[in-house]
């Protein structure tokens, strides 16, 4: 861990200002990922800008939906009555991740910005294009059981580790940011990036920009949804594959479908073609299988994670079944519905 400056910002403007003057500055809120990365010498910030005093912790009504302040903790969001009633998919996804202690500390904005759990990214003894651009990607051909099967590049096969973001992708949230050039809104699908030839960039945030809120649109996926997470142990593990499924049904037919996958790509993975395919179709296993087949057709697995393709296909079908039946996966009972 390197030595660093520490400043505390009182306002968003101050935070943005503090960033401008420093090389390699990082904002810190819950610190649940950043501090780990600093201990591993993966992140070496010259300055930490503490933003925990900014007034961004509220969850408020906004445009018929909800505006979640960037500093609302994961626990606050997951247990908020409005979130639970209107966006239970989000609450369940949050509770499927981490531990109670981590959720109590981790912030909404920080969750979006958590970095991959690729073994090589975390280990400074090894090359990694994400950590050290141009050094190579030993995960390709190496130990890649947990790596991506969609949207990879020859430079990086890492996944985004968040559960919350998978739900936010399915719910089509909007990320509000503030930066040196003012405020802007980023649709969730455009917030995270695929690795391409610049895997060091996880997101499309510009230098010095700070997440202010995550806005949830007015919609109704509170009856037919699920967050189904498959992993190597029954709690406290990152997803091998996870599925956020949300449906609006018209009788037995699908009116709207939203589907996002976690643990399989550099960002929450959506396939709008598959969602469109479901539209108007009967909410049956057959329809769900067709959508799943369409999604996994694009998969490009590595030698160690080929199982994820079939696992994803099956998880999509089961997730859609759970959503259609109105029997979302329980967060506490690990038996899969």
């Amino acid at each position: 861990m390197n030595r660093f400056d520490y400043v505390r910002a009182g306002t968003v403007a101050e935070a943005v200002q503090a960033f401008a003057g420093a090389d390699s500055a990082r904002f810190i809120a819950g610190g649940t990922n950043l501090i780990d990365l600093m201990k591993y010498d993966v992140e070496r910030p010259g300055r930490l800008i503490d933003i925990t005093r900014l007034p961004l912790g509220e969850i408020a009504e906004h445009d018929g939906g909800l505006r979640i302040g960037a500093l609302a903790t994961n626990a606050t969001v997951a247990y908020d009555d409005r979130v639970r009633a209107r966006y239970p998919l989000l609450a369940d996804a949050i509770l499927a991740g981490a531990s109670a202690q981590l959720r109590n500390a981790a912030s909404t904005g920080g969750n979006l910005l958590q970095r991959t759990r690729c073994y090589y990214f975390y280990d400074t003894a090894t090359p990694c294009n994400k950590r050290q651009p141009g050094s190579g990607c030993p995960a390709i051909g190496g130990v890649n059981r947990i790596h991506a099967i969609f949207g990879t590049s020859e430079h990086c096969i890492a996944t985004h580790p968040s559960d919350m973001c998978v739900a936010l992708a399915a719910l089509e949230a909007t990320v509000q940011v503030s930066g040196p050039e003012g405020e802007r809104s980023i649709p969730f699908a455009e917030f995270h990036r695929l690795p391409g030839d610049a895997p060091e960039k996880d997101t499309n945030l510009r230098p010095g920009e700070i997440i202010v809120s995550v806005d949830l649109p007015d919609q109704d996926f509170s009856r037919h949804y699920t967050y189904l997470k498959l992993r190597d142990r029954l709690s406290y593990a990152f997803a091998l594959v996870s599925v956020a499924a949300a449906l609006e049904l018209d009788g037995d037919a699908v009116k709207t479908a939203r589907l996002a996958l976690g643990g399989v790509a550099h960002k929450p993975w959506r396939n709008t073609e598959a969602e469109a395919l479901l539209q108007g179709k009967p909410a049956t296993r057959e329809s769900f299988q067709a959508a799943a087949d369409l999604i996994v057709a694009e998969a490009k697995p590595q030698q160690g994670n080929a199982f994820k393709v079939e696992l994803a296909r099956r998880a999509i079908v089961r997730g859609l079944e759970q959503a259609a039946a109105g029997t979302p996966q329980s967060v506490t009972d690990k038996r899969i519905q």
Partner: protein
Amino acid sequence: MTQTFSSTGRDSFVGTPRSRIDGPAKVTGLAKYAGEFSAPDLLHGYVVSGIVAKGRIRSIDTSAAEAVPGVVKVLTHENRPRTAWLNYNYQDQVAPPGAPFRALYDDKILYSGQPVALVVAEDFDTARHAATLVKVDYEAEAPSVDLTKVGDFAYDPPMKRNGIKPPPKPWGDADAVFDTAAVKVREQYTLATEHHNPMEPHASTVIVEEDGTYTVYDKIQGVSNSQGYLANVFGLKKDEVRVLNPYLGGGFGSGLRPQYQLFLAMLAARDLGRSVRVALTRDQMWTFSFRPEAIQTISLGADRDGTLQALRHDALAPTSQFEDYQEVVVNWSGILYKCDNVALTYKLAKLDTFTPADMRAPGAVTGVFAIETAMDELAYATGQDPIQLRLKNYTQRDQTQEDKPFGSKELRACFEQGAERFGWAKRDPEPRSMREGRELVGWGVATGIWESMMMQTSAHAILTADGRLEVGNSTGDIGTGTYTILTQIAADTLGLPMEAVTTKLGDTRLPEAPIAGGSWTAASSGTAVMKACRDVGEQVFRLARQMDDSPLANVDFERVAFADGHIVVADDATRRVALVDVMRAAGVERLEATGQAAPDKDFNSQYEAYTHSAIFAEVKIDEELGQVRLTRIVSAIAAGKILNPKTARSQILGGVVMGIGAALEEESLMDTTLGRFMNHNLGEYHVPVNADIHDIQVIFVDEEDRANPLGVKGLGEIGTVGTAAAIANAVFHATGKRIRHLPITVDKIIG
């Protein structure tokens, strides 16, 4: 019970459930661990871990690190002080044959993660920061770390490891009989490399005393091992090095051998003349000991009714380039079942890794997984119940040891009582026949076995005039309950309340005892404490007889009991005298004795001694999604006398959970190009969490054993052995899919 552990054989505390006496200290934070002791001006060492697996260090540039304010020195192979020359001096009590690893010895890189420098600074944060500034230039070679590719270089270790029985010579003709057997099972079984990962990472604090001697707090399972190592390596007299470790935050075998952080802390302390602490990070816990993987083939030839006619168990296991680590992997197959044609082989192959190490039930977890899965396969191949098959091939004699009978073996009772508790009779043996909702339900069973050992051990007992008793020796309580059971034994032997007894452990100033391992501590230290207390009891008795108007006049020692702080005539409770009154009358301030325990040569010449278990497992599997839920375990244990059913149960629970980890989750993933374990943190190396653990029931069956006066056999390892096989067998019963490669992860279920 006819075996006595006190003068009367009356149990007051022994045999009853008692909470561990070190519990309050541990849960309130009063208990201090090796890395928590301090000293004025303590320096902190941070290890720089190497990044290549093979090759040499071309150069090390420490200038940037040394320029950091607060850095005192950066030790490397280029500037380290001299230590002992001969390998012999580095061989600790449990070292396998070979040349033990020496940190910062020369420019050679033997494995990835090897310590290449120690940054010593005034505080930990400075040392950690400066460690990132040490620049090491390597000349790297391609490492060999893939066990599947070195089978051609397998060899029979020329030097056998002390205390590890090599495979016995074959008997009968296993191959010929297998070829003509009516029913055959021949399969390969593998299991993954596991790292011990105790909660407490390894740490050593070396304190330089004013007189130039050293007080060392080391994370070790037995302080005498560290003391001997330090004395030999650094050319010190034993009385110049006092080693303590009152508490251990888990060891599981990783703390049997002194690890490199101890060497480095002492090296720095000697060099700088100041106290030094070196604590390893969680990631660095992957830079030394581990349970080795193994490739095993089991060949079973049987009659149609399942009677074994031929048994082969062949194992290939890795070791390092510098030591021949050995454990007992294949012998178990020959010990568990009666068979006239048996061949057992165990070979090693060298890899560019650190030396493997004993990990809870070393070798048995490995070998018993294979044989007990194969026996389940034979049960299905011969169409009979897996318990019946095991009983059909049951043996009361150890064919690997000249057919000697077992001193005691209540495995049959384990099967009976375990099956009863589990409800085994309700099992439909047909695979895929049991369902609950979407989930397939599977029930599996397996046998567990571990050697019951005793070691040369001493202990002391000191009775003071205030009626308090101190007992102790240098062995460690590694979280097993040793403090508690020794207190129980001491209290019973002298008829005192447990509160009047203080048990001291983990200090080389106490009488010498071996490291805590092998499940031998209860039998060995327990016996030594009992004998020391008996000796003190006899001393009190003699003084009591000399008292004026002694109520014990004309009474033999055999006729008295110790109870309620008194010596009592066994058949006349009115004749009694308080221990404190005896000492006061005699004007004696303290009475002390040292007790010795050793293996009973006479018994051992006639009998073989093992603990046994029958493990029953229930899994519920979502086959489509590959999710396995382990919902129930019943572990029925035959381990002689149970000193404390509460701590004993905890021991088995912990062992079972470790077995569950081996079965379903634990796997250190090696990058075979880099020669490096990659998932070196507890986020990616999975051990069971609460959600993975459900109902675990422990049964102790009655078993009378005479290997030692306590009738104790030891419980540290047996809970782990066989658990993985029971689970794998349950997975087969649930799904019809036989998985022979641990851990049983999602991909293997859906694959």
